[in-house]
């Protein structure tokens, strides 16, 4: 069983309540005095954050590493670039997501309204990058399927396509040539509706930092990290398999599915093992990143070496 009780957080990693309450007070006070923009005061917390049972029994990767070791090429190619370049540059408000395509009720998601009306839950997921490193991250978010259903996808909606913000003024990395910007990704509709697929709006109980894909991103824990598209501005229900940026960049190296699979190597490096950030050496990579019990049935009968 993969879904475990919440017992794996070291007590040293838990911020004492007094500390975070006083932190919130400080921020609220600063906002009240006009020292901070009002949005930031809301930023601290999800007041009704519910701990979900979707939780892996492994030590969390430190918040510092989760927020300072990022692939977000819109802000530079190096892992340290996004945390250096994205905060302050990426403007997460106002923010809307346009939802259209094969659905009965196309519309728009306004991030503030969305946060107010959604039941945000915390889920601790493994995160496995295609570059063979991994983390364990406490996300805050909403199941993607619950959000998609509101727009009533029709029977023609076989896939869901996602798109990232495309603003060179905010994202200096868009000047990098060779990529088919804006960043775009896709899921099969049954993958998108799977309860593990998450629309994340925070991590470590705090608002999603810019470098992690503020204000809202996708998390698909059984797939390589690049499927988790960041800073989403558009969602489309489509009938045929959508193009994805990395697949276009290098078709033989990055498949549409990109399920974590230790038996299918990247053409240039092994996927059998992974380096867990914060540890030494390498640990074996698990099929579907350890979520095989929940998701393997989505792919029954498929040749996973062909549909990698």
């Amino acid at each position: 069983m993969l879904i475990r009780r919440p017992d794996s957080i070291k007590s040293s990693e838990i911020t004492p309540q007094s500390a975070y309450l006083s932190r919130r007070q400080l921020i609220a006070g600063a906002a009240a005095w006009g020292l901070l923009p009002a949005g930031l005061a809301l930023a601290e917390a999800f007041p009704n954050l519910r701990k979900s049972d979707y939780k892996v029994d492994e030590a969390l990767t430190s918040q510092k590493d989760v927020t300072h070791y990022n692939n977000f090429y819109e802000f530079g190619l190096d892992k340290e670039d996004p945390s250096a370049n994205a905060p302050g540059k990426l403007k997460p408000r106002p923010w809307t997501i346009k939802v259209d395509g094969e659905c009965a009720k196309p519309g728009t998601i306004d991030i503030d309204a969305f946060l107010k009306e959604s039941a945000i839950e915390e889920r601790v997921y493994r995160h496995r990058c295609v570059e063979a490193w991994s983390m364990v991250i406490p996300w805050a978010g909403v199941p993607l399927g619950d959000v998609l259903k509101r727009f009533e996808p029709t029977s023609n909606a076989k896939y869901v396509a996602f798109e990232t913000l495309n603003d060179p003024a905010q994202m200096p990395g868009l000047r990098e040539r060779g990529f088919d910007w804006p960043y775009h990704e896709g899921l099969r509709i049954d993958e998108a509706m799977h309860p593990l697929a998450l629309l994340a709006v925070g991590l470590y109980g705090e608002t999603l930092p810019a470098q992690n894909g503020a204000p809202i991103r996708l998390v698909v824990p059984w797939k390589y990290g690049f499927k988790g598209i960041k800073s989403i501005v558009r969602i489309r229900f489509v009938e045929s398999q959508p193009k994805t940026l990395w697949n276009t960049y290098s078709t033989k190296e990055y498949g549409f599915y990109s399920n974590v699979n230790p038996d299918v190597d990247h053409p240039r490096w092994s996927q059998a093992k992974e380096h867990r950030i914060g540890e030494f050496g390498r640990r074996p990579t698990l099929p579907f990143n350890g979520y095989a019990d929940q998701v393997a049935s989505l792919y029954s009968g498929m040749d996973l070496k062909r549909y990698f």
Partner: protein
Amino acid sequence: MRRLYAHLLCALPLIWLGAQAALGLLGANPVEAAIRFLGDWGLRILILALAVTPLRQVGKVSAVAAYRRMLGLWGFAYVVLHLLGYVVLDQFFDWANIGHEIVKHKFITAGMAAFALLAPLAATSTQGMIKRMGGMAWRRLHSAVYLAVPLGALHYIWMVKAGRAQPTLYLTITLLLLLSRWVYARFR
């Protein structure tokens, strides 16, 4: 005295790396950061070593010739540390997996081939070895460096997921240095 400065200069990146590691400034993935840093400097110093002869031939700067062996050996030292970092810190002596990587993944194949070509050159770098082997044979053996350095640059290009600008620059410089030798030998 000059030689001492040259040694210090070559050691500087290593000292920098040591300081960064000691202060915990290598980031979330210190092993990868250290391995890449060492590989970078190995390649850079070996390219400098390859530049010595063209500088002498084309640029008529003869003073640099005295530093060729020193540069070659320092470059090799960084390559050895780079490889040790991979075997010990990254793979933790997982020889089965290392073997698999060498056979299956061309960027590891290229890197290992470059190392295999460089090792005998470092071993025969002394004045005594030149005498024992004879100038011609020694020179023939040491022309392996013309293959090893481009292989090192290819190893780098094949490793990166994206952002090939820097490794491509290294390969271009290497090939230009080799071209300069060929042109000089042929048309001088």
